[in-house]
């Protein structure tokens, strides 16, 4: 179609260039054009957070942004947070503390939590609960998610202390 736009994105350190209609949502560009299927679609109305990615240093719900608006952006998704041989400390802690069940919210939840811990490396339980309130989980009741995030924070902090 003639009305397509030329879009450049850097996702998880890799550059991508493609054509997209202006109305195409970022989540569908990621999932269907780039085959990055970690971020999920739970609502398309900004309520559930399943589609959360980090875009230019901020947590963003990729279902509520046109890919055209993201042109030139640097994006991190769950796929960019760790690797099978070197899991992100949040991935380790979600496994350790049973912070997931069906796994559908998990990519968005961990991506959000990673950003939260950058913004606030030493959060209280209340701050964690508030900080992830944009991400809905239907399975876990959040208690173990909160535990996983707090435990990851304290691991990161003790690693930092040890390094000093």
């Amino acid at each position, binding site marked *: 179609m003639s009305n397509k736009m030329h879009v450049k994105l850097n996702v998880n350190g890799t550059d991508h260039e493609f054509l997209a*209609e202006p*109305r*195409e949502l970022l989540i*569908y560009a990621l*999932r*269907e054009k780039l*085959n*990055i*299927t*970690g*971020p*999920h*679609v*739970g*609502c*398309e*109305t900004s*309520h*559930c957070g*399943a589609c959360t990615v980090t875009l230019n240093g901020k947590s963003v719900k990729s279902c509520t942004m046109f890919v055209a608006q993201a042109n030139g952006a640097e994006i991190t*998704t*769950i*796929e960019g947070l*760790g690797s*099978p041989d070197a*899991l992100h400390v949040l*991935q380790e802690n*979600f*496994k*350790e503390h*049973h912070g*997931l*069940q*069906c*796994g*559908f*919210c*998990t*990519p968005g939840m*961990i991506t959000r939590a990673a950003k939260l811990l950058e913004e606030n490396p030493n959060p209280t339980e209340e701050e*964690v*609960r*508030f900080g*992830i*309130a*944009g*991400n*809905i*989980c*239907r*399975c*876990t*009741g*959040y*208690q*173990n*998610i*909160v535990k996983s995030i707090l435990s990851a924070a304290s691991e990161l902090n003790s690693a930092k202390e040890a390094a000093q």
Partner: protein
Amino acid sequence: MKDEVTREDRVAGLKGLGCSRKRVEDARFTQGKGNYVDDIKLPGMLHGDFVRSPYAHARIKSINIDAAMALPGVTAVLTAKDLEPLGLHWMPTLAGDKQMVLADGKVLFQGQEVAFVVAADRYIAADAVELVEVEYEELEVIVNPFKSLQSDVVLREDLIAPDGSIPNGAHGPRKHPNHIFTWEAGELEATNQVIDNAEVVAEAEMYYHRTHPCPLETCGSVASMDKVNGKLTLWGTFQAPHVVRTVASLLSGIEEHNIRVVSPDIGGGFGNKVGVYPGYVCSIVASIVTGVPVKWVEDRMENLMSTAFARDYWMKGKISATKEGKITGLHCHVTADHGAFDACADPTKFPAGFMNICTGSYDIPVAYLGVDGVYTNKAPGGVSYRCSFRVTEAVYFIERMIEVLAIELNMDPAELRSINFIKKEQFPYTAALGWEYDSGDYQTAWDKALLAVDYKGLRAEQAERVAAFKRGETRKIMGIGLSFFTEIVGAGPVKNCDILGMGMFDSCEIRIHPTGSATARLGTISQGQGHATTFAQILASEIGLPADSITIEEGDTDTAPYGLGTYGSRSTPVAGAAAAMAGRKIRAKAQMIAAYLLEVHDDDVEFDVDRFAVKGAPERFKTMKEIAYASYHQAIPGLEPGLEAVSYYDPPNMTYPFGAYVCVMDIDVDTGVPEIRRFYALDDCGTRINPMVIEGQIHGGLTEALAVALGQEIAYDDIGNVKTGTLMDFFLPTAWEVPNYETDFTVTPSPHHPIGAKGVGESPHVGGVPCFSNAVQDAFRPFGNRHTNMPHDHWRIWQTAANLGMHD
């Protein structure tokens, strides 16, 4: 040979029953490598989308697809007319009714599927949906079941005989064109007699509102018809893949061996993914018509409006007792709103599910239950939202009746429960409405719970708070919510439980590999419960190979043995039992191999953790790993090579998990905001397989209970518009609203289950809803409240306070 590792080490190495094994599923889920239905992408795949009815009741005068077909990228637009020659414009429901796949002449609820557009991508499909022109003629809408039974408006003309008479339905006589069935249990006359002559009678009417399971992943399917090989493959969000295969075969005429149904990773089910939906059928037809794969994934609004609902029960109760509080009789009548088609997912013989467990945990000598199912202009599909069939309704009913009776008797509700519990020595106990409870020790659990929360202290604090409120010193009141529940799960015995005629057994097949690892396949499917982790634990303990060496596979009908799927907490009670029984078959053969290798008689070896050892000479043994190797590499006289087993398990009875919950809540009467100060949950699910997973299930189930009790609702206006079609209006709690829960347990094994397990995934929802509701209602009890309906959202709580004059 000297044994260097201790027996405890060997047990620990298996990671079998009872240990908090970390989940094997988590590696892929935490790295974004789950494979959910919308992640499936096949070459040439097209996308389907529905034209849906904006009206709740209307005749369709015409459908014009020309403009849609003219849009570049549109391949097909299917309507009922296209499906009719294939006999697919209607489909059978799980409840013995039939349902339109695409609107056939009329629509019966808002959001009903009218036409199916197939296009190159989801955007073009959505554009084409807008271009399909449908002309409707509005009809009178009925959204209330009581009005429906009085109305002259006939919702389902297809169920009226040409002479105007009303033929029987799947569950017997119907007394009105909009009536579906009457279902009764117990003794009506005897119950009435007891209640009429009782010393004390309490009555209540309660509406258990309509809600929705709303898993985070919506429903969807990908159909791929391979015309060369005549084989249909269907991926989808199916809680019962084998049942879907059978239904697909019956509908399409494709033989069952040529259909492969796959449930990939499922993003939560909670009952939403039990039913068979028009989207699945349309994706299949579209793939057959176009010759390429077709994907259909509903959006959230479609999910809330059209694929299933839960509850919607109008319940009327009478309970009688002596002055001392001994319950003598219980009467319950339900008017059940089933929506436009009876698509409830219940075993065939139970059109109201297991609502007849409504005598609860109490020794009630005589009882009666009557249920009338009714058609209205609402979405079809009454599913068991995180509960066994209608058990949440039953437990809510009895736990409210107990509270109301306590008010009538002016008695403490905890004490009233204690007086009436079925006693430990009464098990197995046959309840007045027919079920045989397998095992229980209710009083012990109750006492433990009340002690843990310092119940007496809480009541004293509450009395002080009431006094302070009356003195004008506080605007916050305090509620103590109690619930004691008995679930009935693990459906079920083939003699009385079937779905579409298929008995509700389940299955497990085990293959032991030569090097001592194993693959086991089951007829169930995990939607987050962690089957790959916990079933391997059952098997590890049964066959003596480490859980880490056992792969569990589910959800692919080409490989898994036939099973009835995962819902109603049936996985552990039924498929878990099949796993244990198949494991025992493996062990029986292993015993013969071991005896041969050790050159002793079969009876002279015994199983010990991970090996067979000669009785009285434990240093002479063969490990299961060695036995597995021998079974493939050595000719053993009288035995076939290999080590495999399969078990189809028909449970002799249901299992009856139970629990005791206490919720402490503070309520601001001016804002209507409830604050959960404490929630204590004691669960008894029999033998505990993985305490970590159990605790996770309880946290999740309680949170879904909180949602339902405190705000989650599918609401309609008078003309059938869904008022809660997005997550803006449909309440899903966030981390901010949810408390931390305290969990506890007792263990009363099921006497008939091979490992004594009862199932746990749904207990917290079943017990949690009345507990949260009772907390709200208990807070208002000292001010004159008897019963108010859920959901107790801030507005309704505020209104309750206003009605009781607490704002004056």
